């Protein structure tokens, strides 16, 4: 039943993201139909689509992680009450399991949406894409998005949703700005992993950012469990 509860808490966010993705999907079709960007080279158009999709991956990860365990404190910001959180915590369930289910469902939904968006990017690509190339692209995008998701889950365990959202955005903007200054960061940044070699899209697997993202996501999710277990309500 915890999965059911998690779905009830997440379904509107999921629906909103699906609607937003559908709207964004119409943009390339509209552009090609109207021809407003016909003078722009294909490579630059692809860069735009790719960057837009990276922003969508990040937003999806942050938004779905935002409906975390902490977000049940619906009145916390204004009245000091804990909302339904006290009812949940009085049930015979470990906090580890609460987080596992909540973050697990969010991660699954994030992966589904990111895979669909990435699949659409591959579909739009004028050149044919092999199955291996598609698998490489999907893997790197999903794994790197999970790093963003894990940061959001950790912050959702300690901050109210508004601050969690703001905090994650600031963090990744900082990473984006710093990766152009620091070569080391640039090589391992999850953002780089999502957008590396935007054109052509079928670059080899960027192992450094993918492995870094996987390790980072694991560490941050484990840290989230530790934080939640020590948190007082």
């Amino acid at each position, binding site marked *: *039943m915890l999965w059911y*509860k998690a779905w*009830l808490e997440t379904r509107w966010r999921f629906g909103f993201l699906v609607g937003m993705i559908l709207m964004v999907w119409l943009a390339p079709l509209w552009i090609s139909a109207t021809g407003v960007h016909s003078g722009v080279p294909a490579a630059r158009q692809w860069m735009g689509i790719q960057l837009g999709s990276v922003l969508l991956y990040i937003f999806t990860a942050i938004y779905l992680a935002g409906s975390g365990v902490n977000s049940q404190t619906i009145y916390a910001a204004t009245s000091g009450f804990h909302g*339904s959180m006290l*009812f949940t915590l009085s*049930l015979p369930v470990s*906090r580890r399991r609460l987080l596992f289910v909540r973050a697990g469902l969010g991660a699954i939904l994030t992966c589904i949406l990111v895979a669909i968006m990435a699949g659409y990017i591959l579909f739009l690509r004028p050149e044919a894409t092999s199955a291996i190339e598609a698998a490489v692209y999907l893997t790197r995008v999903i794994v790197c998005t999970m790093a963003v998701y894990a940061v959001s889950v950790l912050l959702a365990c300690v901050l109210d949703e508004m601050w969690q959202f703001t905090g994650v955005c600031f963090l990744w903007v900082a990473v984006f700005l710093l990766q152009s200054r620091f070569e080391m960061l640039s090589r391992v940044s999850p953002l780089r992993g999502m957008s590396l070699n935007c054109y052509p899209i079928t670059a080899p697997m960027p192992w450094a950012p993918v492995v870094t993202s996987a390790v980072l996501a694991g560490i941050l999710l484990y840290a989230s469990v530790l934080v939640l*277990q020590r948190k007082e309500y």
Partner: protein
Amino acid sequence: MSETIISTQGLLKSYSGKPALRGLNLAVPRGSICGFLGRNGAGKTTTLKLLLGMLRPDGGEIRLFGETVKSEASSIAARQRLAFISEDKELYPYMTVGQTIRFTRAFFPTWRRDLEEKFLELFRLPREKAVPKLSRGMRTQLMLLLAMARGSELLMMDEPTSGLDPAMTEDILQALADLAVSDETTVFFSSHQLMEVEQICDRVCLIDEGQSVIQGVLDDLKAQYRRILLVFDAAPPLALAGLPGIDHLRQRGRTASILAHNNVDAVVESARALGAISTEVRPVTLKELFLDHVRGE
């Protein structure tokens, strides 16, 4: 001697260095209805949250159902046998009454469908009604249903009648009294409403500044304590304050009001010896006990 369901020894808790509980000792026997009294900020909610594992104690020991609660696993085992109703009585706003019942039922293998049906009918709670559309009183009733149907041995509540109208308050109190009598469920609830506590509780625990100042069977406490009113020719003598058995002394003009226990006759004799021209001994109410202890006069 009956089993102690809730027991704390020297319980300590501070928030940012400010003590909330200063060595709280508490004992609630099985089958009792225990009112947990204290001023705002006395440490009632903190105690309830510590018992439920929502807060971690800085020191001391918590025992629930005879087992020490010091790890998450032991807290979960205890929570399998109890129910909690918070002061704000918030449930999931995205669920209906029926969904909330189904959700809660999944965690309790001993869930009693007969009690679920009985209380749905008694409280007239429609299964399909959304939780946000329930009044505060109906939410309290739904939480009571969830507590009773899971077969909990202990029901803990933080201000259960807060925000309810008098009719709903009476219904809730009656349900609590029935619960304790019919199912031998132990009820432990914090409250500011002394009338309610006197109406249904057989035990009370009064805490002030994080420490227990009175606890025991309510009738015994009322029998032990007496109000002694004294009138003197002049201002009451200072020696009055030193008499053994006096809990609190209040002086005004030529009169003195004493709260005493276990030594009432001796206090009256001593007061006469000190020049009291009139003495009157009265039984005390819970309100008097509460006010005398928390005001520290």
